[in-house]
């Protein structure tokens, strides 16, 4: 049973990545959107050529959350196009496995975006991204995971709803605020002049807890919420 769960998730993820590699549409648009967000915020905040301290962390996470929301919407839009979501639900595969596959595909996409975003933010704001690479990567991974886990569920839920484009952020942002707080505060603790490792550790711990609970919740609710 466990074997088939991961097998299905793997194939769904592979299919999503194959489609994405062919068109590169979602990756490129998400990436450029993320970069624009960083630039817009930079113009809004930088004064006399200097940014206030601590904004690097905030801008990074804002860019991740905005572009992530866009990417989620787009990946499910694809399943709507030829009604393939229905075909996926029709298969005898475990529904949570399908959810996991889509989540994994989204995570790969967002990881690629962050690989570009982090150096960019480091460059523009002189943030010490290489000071604690392990902890920074962990924070980003856990935060993105939590955010994407809830977002994948909500995006799937909204696939047949008319105002899905506006409802997705409306639903997603309030619910994922703890992730945002943990991500920003943890990253800021790593970036500040005298890094506060204990603080960063605390936020990492919170994220682990949050992710565990909410991914479990998402796996439970995916099936009842997706059946009409």
């Amino acid at each position: 049973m466990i074997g088939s769960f991961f097998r299905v998730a793997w194939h769904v993820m592979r299919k999503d990545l194959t489609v994405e590699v062919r068109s590169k549409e979602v990756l490129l648009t998400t990436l450029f959107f993320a970069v624009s967000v960083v630039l817009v915020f930079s113009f809004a905040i930088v004064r006399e050529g200097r940014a206030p301290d601590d904004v690097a962390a905030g801008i990074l996470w804002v860019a991740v959350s905005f572009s992530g929301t866009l990417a989620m919407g787009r990946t499910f839009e694809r399943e709507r196009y030829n009604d393939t979501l229905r075909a996926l639900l029709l298969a005898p595969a475990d529904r949570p496995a399908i959810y996991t596959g889509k989540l994994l595909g989204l995570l790969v996409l967002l990881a690629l975006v962050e690989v570009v975003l982090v150096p960019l933010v480091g460059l523009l704001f002189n943030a010490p991204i290489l000071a604690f690479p392990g902890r920074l990567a962990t924070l980003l991974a856990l935060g993105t995971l939590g955010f994407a886990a809830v977002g994948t569920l909500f995006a799937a839920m909204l696939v047949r709803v008319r105002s899905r484009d506006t409802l997705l952020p409306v639903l997603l942002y309030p619910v994922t605020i703890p992730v945002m707080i943990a991500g920003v505060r943890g990253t800021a603790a790593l970036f500040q002049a005298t890094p506060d490792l204990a603080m960063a550790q605390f936020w990492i711990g919170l994220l682990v807890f949050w992710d565990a609970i909410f991914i479990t919740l998402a796996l439970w609710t995916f099936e009842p919420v997706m059946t009409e």
Partner: protein
Amino acid sequence: MGCPTFAPERATVDKPMSSDFDSVAVVDLARHYGRRKALAQVNFTCGSGEIIGLLGPNGAGKSTLLNILATLISPSRGRVEYGARTAAQGGAEIRARIGMLGHDLFLYPELTARENLLFFARLYGLPDVEAVAQASLARAGLAERGDDLVSGFSRGMRQRVALERALLHDPRLVLLDEPFTGLDQASTAALVSRLRERQQAGRILVIATHDLDVADGLLSRAIFLKNGRVVGSDEDSRGLTERYRLAIQ
């Protein structure tokens, strides 16, 4: 035709095929959306080797009924019995015996025909997916176009791939939503012969269609739907156009 035949019951990697059924019974089925009755008081039974036609104007509830038969929508009232079990009892095992060709074809345009078939074959846990996909492509007459993107196919070609996708796992219940839309003469004939072949293999086919000329002579039985209700059904499929007009008007 030279294509390999498959054993009637194909086990998936994980679930042995013990849930086959040879009849589908729709009992007092209703589906509401708020105050709108999409379906009401629908009753009928069908068995192996039958081709049932769902005929009716747009908005009559044909797609809704097909989706309920596919277990994708749950009924507001009533039930569908697959053999002795309902969808709630059978769950994934019943889904493994159902194949559907939707109006929107259920294909990924960014993938090749072969990749589409391989993906779904893997999803269904079929053994030896490469051979299955190759055989399906051959049956669709697209063996040489197998590695072209579906987005470059004509409607007829896409239809053929989509049909083979629906039949990959040799389902007992085959549901088709407006399969003849936009097909030329040759494609229609090919589709009809494939459906007849499935009928002879003892499968149950339910087709929602507008195309009365094609349906005439293909269907073993017709069910007329109007405003979500069954307004007439008949065994004999002669004079379908005439009977449609009488039932629907």
